[in-house]
């Protein structure tokens, strides 16, 4: 039992750091990518990072293991909705600018 | 301080007459100019009459706060509607009444956007009345701001000479003052432990010395901006120059008094230790202002600039009186507020009349106006003489009290202030000579003199000035009733 707890996939921190890395990678993508769709993908990564967190807490700390799973499910739904809206707006942007490069959208400043 | 409740809400009526008039004006048409003027005059007249009534009916034997009205306003934050009259604000209410009434009459000939003009002017006056009668810091500050902000529009639209710059500068400068006042007021509120804005109750609280020192200096600077305390005075000449006649009258005549009155009423009253701590600085700034104002005024060529700087100097006298912290000094300071108010109103109304005709205020261009408009000139000269501290005018007594008290408390500064009287005389007479004496400028020779109707407001002002010049005890005796307990409370 003791050794089981020591196992790397049996430790909360592993998942937390993992989620964190995913979060940071996603954040990097949001900050660095010009392609709006890539930015959207990065946002999905961020949401997944949060899901992992929830699931990890659910697994290791929460009194009832169902709550975290439910939350993760909802996050997925929200992410889907978000993706739908974002994609539709991206398409609209493309129609306007003939490009999905966010750096082309520079009308608003100051 | 004892409080005597009012049987009839005199003060509220005085306060509400202008906004009521304002409300009526909202529903009048721009074309109905005469009606608009009459409504404004009636509103101002009611306040004026009531202010005279309170001045006369105040029972000096009884003393304390009279005509008190007090209602809970916002209980949670300790805000009360608390108005009253005592010796130190009765003269100022009277002053406001005089100046607004004469101000409306002075602007009788206004043609441009009449309705809006009177709306804003009445709004402003409401604020002024409110400040003078409020004994609750919340309302005090509320009215204070009401009095300050309409100035922006009044100057902007009906003003002259660099009005855009001046209006913005004036408003921002004064609001920057408010930026210091709010924390000051709130610091008192918060550190009182009783969470009330009621000044009379706050007065009973012993604030910690650091609170008093901090609050006092913030309020002094904040209100001092409005009071034209050197070196925060620069808005005042610029603003006065730009403002239309009645607004200059109100502004220099009444609004600047708000600042000095507030220093007295709020800062000194609530933070006596703070006052003791900063009194030296106050005296220094005030004396500097007195000397500085006259010297700078000496170099001006615009009539209104001259008056503006004379206001700086005269308000310095008020400040010096306050700084002495003696009964004489405070009596003199309050008296000077009144006297200077009437005097400056007269100044501006005389200048305004001439400016409206000639469209110039340059003293080199004008000249010989005594020949062209003897009556208008006489008004100005009277005001100038009053400004020079000639006896027989109200301001003489005030200056006398302040200066003697100042010599006692701050000898050197007091002597400097006295010495500035010469320059003050030179200053006033230089303007009078250049503008009203010598050969008349042929360009202006065909202008007509003040009509009796338009002369009326000026006569009222002169009348008050001379009445209190000959019977100063009427004023001093009244002021004294509240100053003596005030000083004992310090």
């Amino acid at each position: 039992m003791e050794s089981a707890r020591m196992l790397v996939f049996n430790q909360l921190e592993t998942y937390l750091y993992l989620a964190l890395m995913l979060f940071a990678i996603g954040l990097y993508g949001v900050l660095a990518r010009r392609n709006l769709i890539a930015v959207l993908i990065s946002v999905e990564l961020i949401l997944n990072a949060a899901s992992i967190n929830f699931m990890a807490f659910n697994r290791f700390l929460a009194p009832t293991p169902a709550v975290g799973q439910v939350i993760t499910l909802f996050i997925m739904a929200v992410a889907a909705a978000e993706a739908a809206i974002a994609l539709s707006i991206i398409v609209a942007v493309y129609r306007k600018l003939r490009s999905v490069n966010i750096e082309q959208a520079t009308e608003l400043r100051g | 301080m004892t409080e005597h409740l009012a049987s009839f809400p005199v003060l509220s009526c005085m306060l509400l007459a202008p906004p009521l008039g304002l409300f009526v004006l909202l529903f009048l048409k721009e074309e109905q100019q005469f009606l608009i003027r009459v409504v404004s005059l009636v509103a101002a007249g009611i306040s004026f009459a009531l202010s005279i009534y309170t001045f006369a009916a105040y029972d000096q034997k009884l003393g304390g706060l009279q005509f008190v009205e007090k209602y809970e306003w916002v209980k949670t934050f300790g805000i009360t509607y608390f108005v009253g009259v005592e010796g130190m604000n009765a003269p100022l209410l009277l002053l406001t009444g005089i100046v607004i009434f004469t101000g409306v009459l002075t602007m009788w000939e206004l043609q441009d956007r009449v309705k809006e003009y009177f709306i804003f002017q009445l709004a402003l006056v409401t604020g002024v009345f409110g400040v003078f009668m409020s004994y609750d810091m919340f309302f005090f500050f509320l009215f204070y701001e009401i009095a300050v902000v309409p100035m922006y529009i009044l100057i902007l639209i009906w003003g002259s000479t660099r009005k855009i710059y001046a209006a913005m500068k004036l408003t921002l400068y004064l609001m920057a003052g408010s930026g210091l006042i709010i924390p000051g007021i709130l610091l008192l509120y918060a550190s009182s432990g009783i969470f009330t804005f009621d000044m009379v109750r706050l007065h009973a609280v012993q604030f910690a010395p650091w609170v008093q020192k901090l609050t006092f200096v913030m309020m002094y600077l904040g209100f001092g901006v409005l009071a034209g305390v050197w070196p925060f005075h620069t808005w005042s000449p610029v603003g006065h120059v730009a403002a239309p006649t009645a607004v200059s009258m109100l502004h220099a005549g009444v609004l600047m008094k708000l600042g000095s009155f507030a220093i007295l009423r709020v800062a000194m009253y609530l933070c006596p230790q703070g006052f003791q701590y900063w009194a030296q600085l106050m005296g220094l700034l005030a004396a500097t202002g007195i000397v500085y104002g006259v010297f700078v005024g000496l170099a001006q060529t615009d009539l209104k600039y001259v008056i503006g700087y004379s206001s700086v100097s005269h308000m310095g006298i008020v400040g010096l009186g306050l700084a002495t912290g003696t009964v004489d000094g405070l009596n003199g300071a309050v008296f000077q507020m009144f006297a200077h108010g009437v005097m400056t109103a007269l100044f501006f109304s005389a200048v305004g009349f001439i400016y409206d005709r000639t469209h110039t205020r340059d003293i080199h261009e004008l000249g010989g106006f005594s020949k062209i408009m003897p009556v208008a000139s006489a008004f100005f000269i009277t005001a100038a003489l009053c400004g020079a501290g000639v006896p027989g005018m109200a301001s003489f007594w005030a200056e006398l009290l302040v200066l003697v008290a100042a010599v006692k408390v701050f000898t050197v500064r007091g002597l400097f202030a006295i010495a500035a009287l010469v320059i003050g005389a030179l200053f006033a007479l230089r303007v009078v000579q250049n503008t009203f004496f010598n050969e008349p400028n042929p360009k202006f020779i065909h202008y007509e003199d003040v009509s009796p109707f338009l002369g009326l407001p000026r006569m009222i002002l002169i009348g008050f000035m001379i009445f209190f010049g000959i019977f100063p005890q009427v004023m001093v005796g009244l002021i004294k009733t509240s100053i003596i307990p005030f000083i004992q409370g310090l």
Partner: protein
Amino acid sequence: MGSVNPFFLGCTLSLVLSLSAFGLIMIFTWRRPKLSLAISLTVSTICLIIAWLTFIKLSALKEPLILSVDWMMSDQIRVPFGFLLDPTSLLMFVIVATISWLIQLYSIGYMAGDSGFGRYYAFLSLFALSMLGLVISSGLLQLYICWELVGLSSYLLIGFWYEKFSASEAGKKAFVVTRFGDIGFFMGLAFLVLNFGTLDIHSINSAAMSKAFPAWLLTPAALLIFCGIMGKSAQFPIHVWLPDAMEGPTPVSALLHSATMVAAGMYLLTRLFPFFSCSPTAMTVILTICTITLLLSSTIGMVATDIKQVWAYSTISQLGFMGMGLAAAGLTGGYLFAGFYHLTTHAGFKALLFLCAGVFIHHFHTNDFFVMSAKGGRRLLIPMVTVTIGALALAGIFPFSGFFSKEAILAELWNLPNKMWLGLGLLGAFLTAYYTFRVIFVLLFPRPQAVGGGHGVEEEHGHGHGQEEEHGVPWVMAVPLIILAGFTCVLGFLQAPIQKFLLGEVHHHAPNYVLLVSAVGCALGGIGMAWLDWGAKGAKWEGFIRKVPVVENFFIQKWYMDHFWRWFLNTVIYGLFSRTFTYNDRRVVDGGVDAVAFGTIGSGRLLSFIQTAFLQLNLLFMVLVLGGIGIYLLMGR
């Protein structure tokens, strides 16, 4: 104050009436000359009657009558309103009332047709009010107030013809310069009231007599108050306003120079004589200043060509003379009589001289007595006779009033241990006689061909009645001349009664023959000198002083005092202080405010660069701030 004392009632009445005359005329009737004149003259006559009645009734007064009610009471400062009726004030009361009545009478003729006739009478009423109030006031503060009002009314009257630049300038100068002295006065009052507690004249005098004042209080207070006297009585170095003050109508000059404005200063010195005499230091200073004034003005009088200016400088010199007399008396423990007596006599003959000058000016429309002489000034009989009488009095020739009063002053000077003062006084007497008779001789012995020294002296006023040529002297102008000439002749012989009235007893001195001879000698010498220079057949019509052109020029330039003050005003006040302060106000103070404002706007512009158009830069900023705050929060834990 149980029952109302009729005298006080009278005093109050005269003040109130004068004030109401002023007010009525200024507000209602200033456009109507006749009505204004009626009001003013009636009031003036009533005042005259009251003054004389009071004077006569109270002539046997033992104790001074004092009335004092509170005018304004603050805490420590209380200003009483009241009257102090004692011989000094009563005498002055009468003088003032009389002279101002005469002047009002005279002005009917002089000012006839002037567009500001009503206004003129209003100002005269104000002048009378302030002077009467000054004279009979019981407290120094009330005195100061009236003192200032005197300054005000003199300002108004001197600048009466305000269209003329010189007139308005002169009015301003008079007001400001006397104000300059007044601040000293005011400081002195503040000093006294703060350290002594009251400004009641009677108690100050009695306290001074009983040595209740310490010296440190007494001397500065006395000197500060003397500053005011210097201003009003035109003593060196702030005498410069008085010669210019002739820009006003001549009756006004007469009023100013005889009984009112300038006399007020010496009156105050007399009034506080016991107080002043307790401080030898102060008295010495006063003596010095008065002596300098005497010599200065006499020398300038020698070269002036404007008749009014000559009289003006003579006034200054005589005021210096009075001051010398009072100071000498104070130093030797004497009495105030001599100086005050000279004040009295001087009031009479100086008013006379000015009014005569006024007649000439009125007639010839010039101020230059050389021109008058050329135009036949001596043909005007009444003024010519009376002016000669006045001149004789001024020169100190027996039996005119000036002789007696000058004699009394020289007697006081004689008593001083240092005889230098006496010598200087005699020199002054000599010069006085010289320049006085310079005028008289020029008028009497005209030489039309020699006119040329008086160019540049303008006609006093050319409007109103310049076109109508009047012949002879109207009676309203002649009567005052005759009355005043009568006074001048008589007053000298009333020395003893006046002394008795003032001091309660007559101090008989053994006649000092040395002094008498030297004084008369000086006067006659002066006249003789004038005769040699101007009167005699072979006279060159130029002053003996022309032999030393440098000195003459120095005198013509009035000792450069005007230049000095002009320089002081232009360079120091306007040039240095005013300009520096203005620059400071525009650039430093106001510039600082504007700098703050622009700085705010600028920082707004700077901060707006954060809001780039690039989404990701914004997001980066957001993330960095969030991360920064987060790490900051974690640091402490």
